């Protein structure tokens, strides 16, 4: 049954209303700008960064901020600013890949679970519940303990930890759609199969999915930073914000920026993701759909 026939205004109004609500507050616009800047920095790091993040120069070790090195240098003489810019690549990469993998796996599990129901559904959902009971960091630490550090394993560990959210979301949508009239009608006509289900479920999923993805991105970046800080994620000489915070800890008195600057970068980026996620959720609120 088409949306127009139900008296809901056509899509173009929804799109405009969405952007109007979404971009209403200045802080949201600033956050979006921050995210765009971060993505650009990550993509164009080799051009933007003033120095090679791996270039050591012992003569310049532990310098305070100066015109040459805006944030100073670390123990091995590497430029902090450049390492922070390159760190954006690591954070974004881990965040996006982990979320994409977790999203695909989770949604598949949710789809199968919701569609087939029965014992498969019960088992899968109990397993998801068990996964959720383990705090994300602990789970990522345990998986990382077995696999070792490195960017691939961090992505895998984080991915496994965030799968349940997508599984539950997809399953909820599938169950809701399964009960709707047009599906039942389709089944009576012999039309039901998984592809049909997907076609009807996906459009409903999109709004909560976008919000979940944005929130998970912020969380993944925070978690990756945490793992790197503990020494189990991306290890030096790799430029990752978390491990930079850890490296700078012994030198707080010489140059506090060694630890504080990369941490501030993490804070700003995660905050931006959270604010944008909140704004998306408000703008996509189905209760407002069709409103002026």
């Amino acid at each position, binding site marked *: 049954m088409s949306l127009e026939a139900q008296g809901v205004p056509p899509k173009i109004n929804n799109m405009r209303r969405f952007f109007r609500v979404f971009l209403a507050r200045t802080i949201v616009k600033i956050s979006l700008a921050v995210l765009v800047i971060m993505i650009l920095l990550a993509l164009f790091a080799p051009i933007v960064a003033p120095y090679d993040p791996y270039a050591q120069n012992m003569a310049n070790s532990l310098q305070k901020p100066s015109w040459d090195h805006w944030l100073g240098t670390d123990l091995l003489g590497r430029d902090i600013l450049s390492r922070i810019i390159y760190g954006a690549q690591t954070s974004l990469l881990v965040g996006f890949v982990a979320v994409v993998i977790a999203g695909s796996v989770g949604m598949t599990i949710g789809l199968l679970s919701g569609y087939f129901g029965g014992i498969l559904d019960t088992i899968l959902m*109990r*397993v998801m*519940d*068990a*996964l959720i*009971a*383990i*705090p*994300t*960091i*602990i*789970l990522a*630490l*345990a*998986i*990382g*303990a*077995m*696999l*070792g550090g490195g960017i691939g394993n961090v992505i895998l560990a984080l991915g496994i930890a965030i799968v349940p959210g997508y599984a539950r979301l997809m399953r909820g949508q599938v169950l809701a759609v399964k009960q709707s009239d047009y599906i039942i009608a389709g089944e009576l006509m012999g039309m039901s199969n998984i592809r049909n289900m997907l076609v009807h479920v996906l459009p409903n999923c999109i709004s909560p999915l976008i919000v979940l993805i944005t929130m998970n991105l*912020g969380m993944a970046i*925070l978690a990756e*930073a*945490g793992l790197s*800080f*503990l*020494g*189990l994620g991306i290890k030096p000489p790799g430029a990752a914000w*978390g491990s930079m*915070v*850890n490296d700078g*800890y012994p030198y*707080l*008195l010489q140059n*506090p920026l060694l*630890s*504080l600057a990369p*941490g*501030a970068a*993490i*804070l700003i980026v*995660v*905050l931006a*993701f*959270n*604010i944008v996620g*909140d704004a998306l959720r408000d703008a996509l609120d189905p209760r407002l759909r069709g409103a002026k």
Partner: protein
Amino acid sequence: MGAYIVRRIAQTLVILFLLSVIVFLIMHLLPGDPVRMILGGEASHEEVEMVRKELGLDRPLPVQYVSWLGGVLQGDLGTSFASKEKVIDLIKKRLPVSFHIGICAFVLALMIGIPAGIIAAVKRGGWIDSLITVMANLGMAVPVFWLGILGIYFFSLKLGWLPVQGYTSPFDDFWKSLKQTAMPIVLLSLTTLAQVARQTRSAMLEVIRQDYIRTARAKGLKEKDVILRHALRNALIPVITILGVGMGHLVGGSVFIEQVFNLPGMGRLMVQSIFNHDIVVVQAIVLVVATVVAAANLLVDIAYGYLDPRIRYR
């Protein structure tokens, strides 16, 4: 109510069982030979096999699982590779520390977060609402370990008010313990505080719009009574649901806090064991932690069922 509790307990037991399987699989199925990791790269093949037999790691996996689970149910969580102590003893020493910091942080988060959320909701749109919302957003985005380092920089190094590290039990020396644990507790509570404040605020906003609140005001009740006696009770119900999740985050955050402030808790033990390739300890800690969180979630659900009768019949 009774049937609901029984159902939830049964579900939790199933989850705990699955948890034990998942934890076991993680530690035994993932690539990475623990015996090689402990002995180092130069160990000969015979040495590796000998240690493997000694630790019982050459038995088929299901046998190992059943043997481990049997031990766990009797309170034997294994023996540490590194220190040869019984894991259960290690945990008994460390758990009180983590509990101390964690519970205090949790209570602090509630004591400040709930009133903050209420004030923000009641004075919606005002400057205090904006301030509280901003701080809550910040609190949820800030990396806990960075906050710890920031705190140490200002309060220990620059101002010299508080010590950098160390832990004393409050039963041994109350004031020293307070000075040492003040920063860890406050900083650990911030993330949960932020979540609680946000959730309380949005729940209160939701409730204040309801008809029964209008009725209460129309009856002539003082605003204070309207908010605290009628609105708050209903608003707290959704807040309770995030307490379960909040506990999980608190446990995760405590790993970093213990690392930064060098507190001898469970989180620190886990990190050390990971670096020692001491998978027996890691396995036990993950199981214990997840069990505590699952139990907390169970209590939260039961409380939720008590407060909101609608949930019992789903």
